[in-house]
């Protein structure tokens, strides 16, 4: 079918400000949006810049604002969008070129919650044991691919870039609720700061944007309660 694609473009070396570019092309309903923009790049305009790698929703490179919602370009099909497709860079992070944004602030927020396993006891010769139930508690938050779709869909983050954002909280949850980990208190402490957890206004955009179906708002609420009852 014939589709109409509008892309918000910006080349810092040539353009004073971002502008909308429109393209008409043939596509199949089963094409991914990534196939569409690849086609544009390969056949129409080589200067179009975006990130991609795995092409099946696993690497987290290509979160974009597609038809008004954050998604991975490789995980949404043309048939689910219709003939008019609008693509913008994700919001709240500085746009570097076309659909490429600066991910450093995002990763900084991630790093701030100490997203790594902490257990200073000498490890046993084999594995540390963990019951299947304990493992299940944080299963969902281990799925995160750091695509930033959530953080950049959050209305609080759009205006307040100091907010650590849902992705950081998700990754803190991953460890706070791991029965083997010993760093929960520190992490909760970080989240307890002014721009941490308490900035979340339960807007649910993050949950709806997450390509890994992580129930982010629920996760955030779990961390809020943990902080409330355990204290920091």
């Amino acid at each position, binding site marked *: 079918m014939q589709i109409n694609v509008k892309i918000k473009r910006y080349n810092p070396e040539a353009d004073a400000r971002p502008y909308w570019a429109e393209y008409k092309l043939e596509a199949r309903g089963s094409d991914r949006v990534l196939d569409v923009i690849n086609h544009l790049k390969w056949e129409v305009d*080589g200067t179009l810049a975006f990130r991609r790698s795995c092409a099946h929703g696993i690497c987290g490179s290509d979160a974009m604002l597609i038809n008004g919602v954050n998604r991975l370009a490789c995980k949404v*099909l043309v048939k689910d969008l219709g003939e008019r497709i609008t693509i913008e860079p994700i919001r709240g992070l500085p746009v570097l070129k076309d659909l*490429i944004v600066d991910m450093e602030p995002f990763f900084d927020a991630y790093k701030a919650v100490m997203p790594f396993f902490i257990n200073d006891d000498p490890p046993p010769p084999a594995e540390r*044991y963990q*019951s299947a139930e304990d493992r299940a508690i944080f299963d969902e938050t281990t799925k995160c691919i750091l695509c930033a779709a959530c953080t950049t869909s959050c209305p609080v983050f759009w205006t307040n870039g100091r907010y650590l954002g849902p992705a950081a909280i998700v990754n803190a949850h991953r460890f706070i609720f791991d029965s083997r980990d010993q760093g929960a208190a520190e992490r909760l402490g970080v989240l307890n700061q002014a721009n941490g957890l308490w900035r979340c206004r339960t807007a649910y955009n993050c949950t709806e944007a997450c390509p890994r179906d992580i129930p982010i708002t629920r996760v955030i609420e779990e961390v809020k309660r943990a902080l409330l009852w355990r204290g920091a």
Partner: protein
Amino acid sequence: MSEDGTNRLMNRAHRFDVIVVGAGGAGLMAARYAAQHPGVSVAVISKLYPTRSHTGAAQGGVGAALGNVSEDHPEWHAFDTIKGGDYLTDQDVAERFAVEVIEAVYELEHMGLPFNRTPEGKIAQRKFGGHTREFGKSAVERACYAADRTGHMILQTLYQQSIKDRVNFFNEFHVLDMIMEDGACHGVVAYELATGEIHTFHAKATIIATGGNGRMFRVTSNAHALTGDLMSIAYRRGLPIEDPEFYQFHPTGLYKLGVLLTEGARGEGAILRNGDGERFMERYAPTIKDLAPRDMVSRAMYLEVREGRGAGPDKDYLHLDLTHIDAHIIETRLPDITEFARIYLGVDPVKELVPIQPTAHYAMGGIPTTIDTQVISDGQNTIVPGLYAAGEVACASIHGANRLGTNSLGDLIVFGRRAGIEAAKFAASESFTDLPAGVQDRTRELVDTVRKGKRTERVSHLRRELQDTMQEHASVFRTEAFLSRQVDILRELQERYKGVGVEDEGHQFNTELLEAIELGFLLDNAEQLVHAALNRTESRGAHSREDHKERDDTEWLKHTLIYKDGDGVRIDYKPVTLGKYEPKPRTY
């Protein structure tokens, strides 16, 4: 160069004791262990953000004989690996691997990796293709897994630890050359995507961990970024590539897309069916049926299609049947692949058959190394000082002619770790030498040729032709006629490649430029594969010649080493390290 220019040049010269190229499982493991060496500075250079590496796509599991579910031993694992590799596996490497992978898996667990658990709370394990008890008696639960995202967990866990360890990262830096002088490696030269600037990374030891090259085929499970860059760079620098003809096709890729459905699905009981609904693997591998090694299953699938028993209007695909498996097991142990089928094909695996076809998956060959991951430059195991390789890009050779499922993740952690330790040890004992003059010259030339190219050819068209013809002529079944034809095609494509150029004249995030350069790398990878395949007149593992159907141990029990030689290639050999397992016919 202006004052200012020199200054900027200084900022673009970096010096670390150990440089790791690639931030996948192998690279991050290497960085971690190198950094643990006191006083050794380490940096990782990656063309992608680390967590975007394709290790994150690995699904099924990592094989280690923990024996958590049923009795298991490293000897059994080693044997399966050797037999799976059709006896081209170096047996000393496989034996060491089977032991060390157990330690490495425990270490990953200690780093926090969230494996699934058995009812007793141990690491859960499941069956996987080619992994057996007592030297081939029946399938054994050896794959340690975390749902169907084991690779994701490994990648995340290692990246997390590298944050903890304060590893230096240069993300979105594309390595385009190695600094080689007098047969030794002194670092790499890289192009910074954000600015278009060229940086020199001076190192005492360089570890290459850049993953695979599946993008030379049309239907592949590999990411867009897997273009075999360093295999090509090493090759251009006069180093050999080992066994490139052995390229694995994974049986269960989503029809047309190539997106992988893990073998773990069959480990959980899924069955392959042809267009008539028959469980055809019973005819090809009576004992372990659907869990036979990948080369055998992919060949069986090709034969089914060729003999008219495919499914669909064009009878060109087959089916993976999960419908008899408990829906809860599917949703909990195979959630991701279930989602892939639903999203990309609109098929619900719980209720429907999933259309599949073999998909280009894994390079058994690569940059040749010793068991300690030192890169070697010839069949006499001459070591290239300061150069190490690990992961899919390397060939130690543990996978031989065909890799077993789960052995790649094992490879990453075992040899990634080794590379880190060895490189750090080497770096600690060496001092920096002066860099040769004009270290950036080759890179500048490479970039400039593409930048100023004539643009008479489109990169995407050449790449498509490469992928189509490789799929056609050099995939699961090969013949002399097809391969020779492909040699000609590649020569023509190489010629036409000289006419490529880019529309994007900018410096910042010029992804078009890099795609063009990557295509050049891919062409080299294809050249290595096709020439080696044409040369090897036998069928072994993943290399299946219809004009030479038998394995020929008298003539061909040896590794290929292929070199670039002017515009052509030169082929040399390296003996296979044998051991207690005599090559036998491979039946399952």
